[in-house]
């Protein structure tokens, strides 16, 4: 039994002291690993990251996180990462880590991701420099995620892709369609399907839905706190009968 607790979009600010910690009181008994899918702070201020660190002080299981768009707002993401790492949180940014739980090695590859929309209605890197920069940011995020997954998957019994932005539209159900291009990108799903994973966890879409699946059949869970309406969700990654082969998404 490998139990993974996950939550995103906790948006810690000065007025939320104690709020997150109260919800994590029993996480050490209920899970083996805690994943945080970005938007840990309200505006990405280092003082808010310090508050996040305090909120997480009672968590004894390993914590793996990615940043979200809110964590970048103050343009001090490096300091936010440093403050989280100081208290033992592993912060992924196009990178991967492994956690050993009772002889089972869980690989987590993660990054923020970005927007652009989904197949059939996605942005393309054409035209103005600003448009190209927007799409290239997503392409870069997807490529780094794919590389991190490919690196960690051969060395892990279970692999999880951790994102802030959504890789599929199914977990956005409930959001206005006009917002989809700002909530995620199919390039992220394609990268995950090529490299392979057992579970994808993301946040960002507060009005979305919890459950979806990539075109290659990998389960996707939107754990934005307004979606799950709880402190976290727990997913039990059971023994796979047969390790699924990566799905070739391109001919």
């Amino acid at each position, binding site marked *: 039994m490998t*139990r993974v607790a996950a939550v995103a979009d*906790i*948006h*810690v*600010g000065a*007025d*939320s002291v104690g*709020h*997150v910690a*109260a*919800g*994590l*009181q*029993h*996480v050490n008994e*209920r899970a083996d690993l805690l994943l945080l899918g970005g938007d840990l702070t*309200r*505006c990405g201020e280092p003082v808010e990251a310090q508050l996040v660190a305090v909120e997480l002080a009672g968590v004894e299981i390993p914590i793996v996180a990615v940043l979200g768009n*809110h964590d970048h*707002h103050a343009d001090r993401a490096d300091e936010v990462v440093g403050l989280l790492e100081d208290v033992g949180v592993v912060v992924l940014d196009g990178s991967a880590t492994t956690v050993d739980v009772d002889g089972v090695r869980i690989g987590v590859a993660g990054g923020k991701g970005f927007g652009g929309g989904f197949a059939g209605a996605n942005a393309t890197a054409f035209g103005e420099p600003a448009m190209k920069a927007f799409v290239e940011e997503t392409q870069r995020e997807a490529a780094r995620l794919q590389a991190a997954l490919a690196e960690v998957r051969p060395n892990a019994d279970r692999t999880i892709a951790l994102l802030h932005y959504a890789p599929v539209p199914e977990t956005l159900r409930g959001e206005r369609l006009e917002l989809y291009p700002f909530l995620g990108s199919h390039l992220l799903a394609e990268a995950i399907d090529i490299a392979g994973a*057992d*579970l994808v966890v993301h946040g960002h879409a*507060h*009005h979305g839905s919890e459950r979806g699946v990539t075109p290659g059949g990998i*389960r996707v869970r939107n754990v934005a*706190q*307004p979606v*799950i*309406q*709880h*402190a*976290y*969700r*727990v*997913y*039990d*990654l*059971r023994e*796979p009968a047969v390790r699924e082969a990566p799905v070739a998404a391109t001919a």
Partner: protein
Amino acid sequence: MAAEPQEYLVQHIQEALATDPRARELGVEVQVAGDRVVLTGTAATAAQRDSIGEVVRELADGYGVVNEMTVLSADEDGTVEELT
């Protein structure tokens, strides 16, 4: 001066909610219904919900503000989803 069209008012409110330090929230649904501005969505705390209402009241001159935002329920959920 003619009243601001409702569509622009909604957009101005949403921009303010993203940028005003009291709010910093992108996930608020803003609707203008008659002479009222109705807010729905979820706030992290009761204080944030109230601050969001305050920001909107300052902008929506001449409108009543109905703040129907809920506060996040962040209690622990005992259920486990088994992914086989």
